[in-house]
């Protein structure tokens, strides 16, 4: 496996980061479900169009896989701990799946939108969201994705996925999303 070495480095770094989560905040009440290696039926962004069983023949669109709910590629969210900017081990399979896809499909381009919870200033939260997007981007680059395939940007606290004002909402909003060209 070509990427064995960088991956192990990365995993070590991620584990180290997890063990040093800042102590000052209460533990998230309801951390959003991490992506599992097995497709998680709870994470259904929208009812997927009925699957073409075996009907569709030859013209294989590699990008169709991105919307296949049975594929890890349909998972686009990477959640972060409070004040943390490391890709957690739980989300590594998702990031890895997208990285593999982008390496195979070098015409593919993504926008990674980082987000932050609502506490604090707009601009500082914009910077924190950027840090999360950059964390996903650098992980993908370590896994071999080309820089020009990825743009990391931030939405700060401006577009909360969960508009609530409690820890569960904040945890859901500390997030980076992967969007493929055509999806934004």
């Amino acid at each position, binding site marked *: 496996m070509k990427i064995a070495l960088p991956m192990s480095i990365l995993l070590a770094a991620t584990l180290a980061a997890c063990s040093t989560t800042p102590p000052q905040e209460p533990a998230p009440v309801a951390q959003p479900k991490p992506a599992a290696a097995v497709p998680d039926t709870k994470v259904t962004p929208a009812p997927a169009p009925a699957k073409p069983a075996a009907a569709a023949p030859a013209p294989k669109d590699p990008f169709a896989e991105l919307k296949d709910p049975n594929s890890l590629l349909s998972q686009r969210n990477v959640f972060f701990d409070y004040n943390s900017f490391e890709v957690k081990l739980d989300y590594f399979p998702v990031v890895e799946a997208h990285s593999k896809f982008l390496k195979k499909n070098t015409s593919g381009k993504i*926008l990674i*939108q980082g987000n932050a919870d609502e*506490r*604090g*200033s*707009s*601009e*500082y939260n*914009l*910077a*924190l969201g*950027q*840090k999360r997007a*950059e964390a996903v981007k650098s992980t993908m680059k370590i896994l071999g994705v080309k820089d020009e395939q990825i*743009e*990391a*940007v*931030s*939405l*700060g606290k*401006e*577009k909360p996925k969960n508009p609530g*004002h409690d820890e569960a909402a904040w945890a859901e909003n500390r997030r980076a999303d992967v*969007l493929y060209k055509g999806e*934004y």
Partner: protein
Amino acid sequence: MQRKPFIQRRHFLQAGSVLALAPALARAELTVEISGLGNERIPIAITTFGGEGVLPKPISDVVRADLERTGLFRLVDTGDQPLADIARPDWNAWRGKGADVLLAGSVRQLANGGAEATFRLYDVVKQAEQKSAVLSFRAELGRNAGHWIADRVYEQLLGVPGVFSTQIAYVQKSGRHYMLQIAEYDGANPVSAFTDDEPIISPAWSPDGKRVAYVSFALKKPVIYLQTIATGNRQVVANFKGSNSAPAWSPDGRRLSIVLTKDGLSQIYLVNLDGSGLRRLMQTDGIDTEPCFSLDGKWLYFTSDRSGGPQIYRVSVDGGEAQRVTFDGSYNVSPHVSPDGKTLAYIGRNNGKFQLTVQDLSSQQTLILTDTTKDESPTFAPNGRLILYATEVGGRGVLSAVSVDGKIRYKPLQGNGDIREPAWGPLAV
């Protein structure tokens, strides 16, 4: 009188159609909440202006509201009759009513359909005229004429310019719509400069008050735009790979400090208005953001997480070593320097509450000015007396204001939906 008539610079109000929109919008103005000032207020009698009935809005009402709103004046009852002769006040009568100062005036219609207002400001104790002026204006701009007179009175009596003719910008979110609003200083008569279905943040006025730089997410990422208010023309200032945000004007109005992520995490750059001359100011591996120029243009105050949590620093615009400015607490953001360069306003976190705080830049003494919990975006009135800021009341975004010494507070200004990201415009040039 050094200043030009106000009408010339209120470009966007010159269109009659724009003014006609105003009554349909939410009526919301800042209201002062005065506590314990009592005797410090100047007792002023402001008479009805003879002939002002020809105007849609009586000038004397506007002047009274402006001056009372400062919390520095106490209005003496004048009845509703104008002075028979504004050149000859009855000193004893006004003294008897407790007035130290008397403002009288008159309005007459001009042949061209415009109007002309005359005012005389008297020191009742010394029995002497302090100031007088005549101005002509279009009748529908009577409110602005009132602001103009209030500015003259304020400056004459307090020695610093009034801000009644200034404007504020803020962002209003109503439903799915984000609107960049430009309103009078007290929030009255808002007009949308830009409307979109994606967020808008960080409006910043050019020093001449003619343009606003801001960040729009219309392209699904933050991009900096520059918009001329009178024409609505807008141009992209920065749309580099990554995020583009936090525009701040140099005091000479020639360039912006902006924050880009094209070379790493959020970093501070300087750029000319046309996008040329881009220069990165510092190289750090953390976050540097929210730049704000000092009045002399030599320093940039900014937020950085180089020490761990966010703190405020300053650095020369020529680069070099940054100096840390805030030390209290673990979270201090959104620096804004007062017009005289002596005070720094920012948002500090205290026991989980985000509160408007000021620091005396020479003594480093700090003072928390509010008891709210979600304060953001402090912006100084251009005379340095008040700080306007965003906060939350009852789950809604509102604007509020407080005097720099914390003594005079304002009830929040509410709009339809949430309002935030205020920016106080400059004094009229």
